[in-house]
């Protein structure tokens, strides 16, 4: 699996795997299904084995709860019960169930530790990481920090530390977050999601052609990637026949 910057659409070719299959993902850190969906995607690609084409994965920003304060005080149950008006016992049962589903995907969700926060700066950090070729690493680091470690992903200093842990320059990340140079890119992602009619996350776009909504099973991701490769072969055949 590779992650490289894209500057233009792939040139037509007779080899359907000459360029990576693109997978664009709209996602938020504070989204339990996004982390589970990430794992399912990885499992689906791994299941293809030697038949797996090179893929180019790019994460895009989607802020689920933009009105969340950076320093929300209280537990996840408190936040959900107050924010959504649900009984605390019902929230606990729901969190227990999603924790069980996450465990089936090999993830250790700890909602008892989770620090709810605004994720806008995390999205800026992910754009900075994309520009420096470390977006997938930072995305995984932030998901794990948020859902498993009880880490804070809303404050600049914490994000700088996570960035350093995945090999990014901490001083550059701090400067980028403080001057907000990636804020317009975050806003553009969010606007583009709205323009595409994307209302929920995770949302995956495979090769600019197929849309996959939600934490689908691994086999769905494997199938759609294979279909994208087959489409390329069909397209190349049609071009060659003209």
């Amino acid at each position, binding site marked *: 699996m590779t992650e490289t910057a894209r500057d233009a659409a792939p040139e037509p070719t007779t080899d359907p795997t000459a360029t990576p299959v693109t997978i664009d993902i709209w996602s938020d850190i504070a989204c*339990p299904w996004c982390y589970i969906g990430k794992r399912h995607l990885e499992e689906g690609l791994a299941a293809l084995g030697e038949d797996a084409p090179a893929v180019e994965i790019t994460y895009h920003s989607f802020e689920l709860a933009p009105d969340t304060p950076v320093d929300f005080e209280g537990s996840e149950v408190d936040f959900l019960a107050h*924010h959504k008006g649900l009984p605390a016992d019902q929230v606990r049962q729901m969190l227990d169930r999603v924790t069980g589903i996450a465990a089936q995907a090999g993830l250790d969700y700890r909602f008892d530790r989770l620090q709810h926060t605004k994720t806008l700066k995390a999205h800026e950090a992910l754009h900075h990481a994309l520009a420096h070729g470390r977006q997938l690493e930072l995305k995984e680091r932030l998901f794990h920090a948020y859902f498993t470690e009880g880490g804070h992903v809303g404050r600049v200093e914490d994000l700088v530390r996570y960035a350093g842990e995945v090999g990014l320059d901490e001083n550059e990340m701090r400067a980028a977050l403080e001057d907000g*140079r990636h804020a317009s890119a975050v806003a*553009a992602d969010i606007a*583009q999601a709205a323009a595409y*009619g994307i209302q*929920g996350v995770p949302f995956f*776009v495979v090769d*600019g052609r*197929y849309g996959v909504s939600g934490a689908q099973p691994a086999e769905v991701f494997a199938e759609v990637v294979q279909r994208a490769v087959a489409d390329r072969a069909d397209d190349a055949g049609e071009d060659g026949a003209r």
Partner: protein
Amino acid sequence: MSEPTGTPAARGALPHPTAERPAASPFTLVGAAAPVCVDGVCELPAEPARRADEAEPLV
């Protein structure tokens, strides 16, 4: 230091939606209904089904 090259559409990798006629879904949708988070609310499907109409609110 390189900066982001903009949105995928700007880079030519994805379809351009238009402001006048937003693309509700310019993509061919694949897969059955699966859990998503919408507007701060995450859905948990009734087990074991994954149909949207069987989902209940999670958060």
